């Protein structure tokens, strides 16, 4: 479902050009479970942002479900993000003034779904991440692991086909990190394509596919 060919991404820092990604070729099939490893600054997040259509490559082509995304308008890319892609971030990015349920509901609200249709879906999503009893808590009343599970529920409520997680356990202790990974893997078993960026070798060992990045290239697959 994902095909990258010759993708490059450069950043201008002062007078220097930083090559964050160099000639990336990558193919991911639907339902795959991939872990991206690599030293800091090797371009893992940059690659994930391009996969998530948050960023555009400077060169090369990215096909998502056989659609060339490089020539799409901003609005079309937003639409693809809305319907096909879910994000999980290291720092959760929950909206602090909204409750857990409202955070999960947010993508449905943005998509303009009617309230009576939203409610059962939110309940179901919270149940999936075992947080039904925390539905009306605000993020500051939840633990780190619980927050990340709320974020996962939010990332999947639109039933995307691609779930991207950038160091989802980076801010968590070992135990709650494990909970989060198990939740993500359960979603993968249901068919979602899962890409995790991680520094934790233990996590990457669980993935069916391991990508090792160094200095903007994939050195090991």
């Amino acid at each position, binding site marked *: 479902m994902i095909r990258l060919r010759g993708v490059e991404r450069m950043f201008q820092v002062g007078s220097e050009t930083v090559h964050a990604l160099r000639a990336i070729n990558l193919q991911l099939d639907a339902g795959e479970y991939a872990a991206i490893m690599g030293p800091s600054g090797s371009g893992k997040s940059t690659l994930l*942002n391009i996969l*998530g259509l*948050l*960023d555009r490559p400077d060169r090369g082509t990215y096909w998502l479900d056989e659609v060339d995304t490089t020539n799409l308008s*901003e*609005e079309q890319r*937003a*639409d*693809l*993000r*809305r*319907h096909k*892609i879910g*994000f999980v*971030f290291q720092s959760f*990015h929950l*909206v602090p*003034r*909204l409750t857990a349920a409202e955070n999960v509901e*947010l*993508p449905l*609200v*943005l*998509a*303009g779904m*009617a*309230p009576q249709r939203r409610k059962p879906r939110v309940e179901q999503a919270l149940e999936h991440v075992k947080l039904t009893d925390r539905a009306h808590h605000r993020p500051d009343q939840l633990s780190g692991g619980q927050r990340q599970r709320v974020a996962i529920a*939010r990332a999947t409520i*639109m039933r995307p086909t691609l779930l991207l997680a950038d160091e989802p356990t980076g801010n968590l202790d070992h135990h709650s990190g494990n909970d989060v990974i198990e939740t993500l893997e359960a979603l993968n078993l249901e068919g979602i394509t899962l890409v995790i960026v991680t520094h934790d070798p233990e996590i990457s060992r669980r993935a069916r596919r391991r990508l090792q990045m160094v200095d903007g290239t994939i050195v090991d697959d």
Partner: protein
Amino acid sequence: MKVKDTLQFSIRALSGFGGRTWLMLLAMAIGVGSVVVLTALGDGARRYVINEFAQLGTHLLVVLPGRSETTGGHPPIMGETPRDLTLDDALALRRSPFIKQVAPIIVGSAPVSSRQREREVNILGTTAELYGIRHLEMSQGKFLPPGDPQRGSAVTVLGAKLKSELFGNRRALGRWVRIGERRFRVIGVLTAKGQSLGTDISDLAIIPVATAQSLFNRASLFRILVQARSRESIPRAKQAVLDIIRERHDGEDDITVITQDAVLATFDGIFRALTMAATGIATISLVVAGILIMNVMLVAVSQRTTEIGLLKALGAPQKQILRLFLLESALLSVAGAACGIAIAFAGVWALDRAFPDFPLQIPPWSLGAAVAVALATGLLFGVLPARRAARMDPVQALNSVGG
């Protein structure tokens, strides 16, 4: 996104705002409040003056001896010695089909006495038609009787104040008073209608015009009041007056005709302009409020940078984010406007108590205009922050610290 959801989202975002927001609301409230109060004051002043003029009578033309060079509203400054206006001139005006009534007026001053009491007051010599032209009202008796204006009888109508000065609470009707050297029978007393534009119509005595002529030993008229048939016939009535008098004065244009409507229109225009000017100046305070809105929203946008990044990651297009933040500034300004209208009503209520004679009322259009201007200000000054939010780079927004 549904309208209700959008509103709810914005309102919840707003309720998380800090003290700066209250400052901004106050600024907007003061701006809107002053706009509304100033329009109420300006409009009140306008209506006050119009009302004063309207009391003089309707479709009124005033004929003055002497030619005025100014075409406007002032009585002429006597340069040349004009030919006098006579009673015959006045009666000749009745000929015109555009003229409904004519009241010649002679004004003089004489002592009026009854028994021991005496007062020096203005004496107005006129005819029965003045009653209708000037909208006078009787509290007792009758006004001057109709009849041949050339023949004066010894009757008088007293203003309310003069009556009470001379007679107190005693009955005045049918009694005799002395005006100058002559005796007059009191046939009526006017109501205490008070002052209209400087002439105190409650402190005078009205007598038939012919009697006044002989009392003051003077044939010339002070002025002639003419009532046109209708509003539309005022210009033609004016022309008729000019034509008839010219014909009688050997082809000389030696009178001035002031139409009340022209004076009214002038004052109306002046006060409208004043109101607009005052409103315009007050509107500047709305601009200040608008800049505060922009400040509040810029702070909100930078504080919520990661939230904006998240919304983009969740698939919100630029337009949607623009709308969300524009709505927040619009809501802010409308809340400020609502407070401002409350302030305005309180202010007008207080002013009304302090000056009960002044007809103070908030014109409904000013409320609508104030809210519209506030809303426009909010949207205008909200565009910049909202655009900044909408155009943020999602990756950078998500990675920004302090959100």
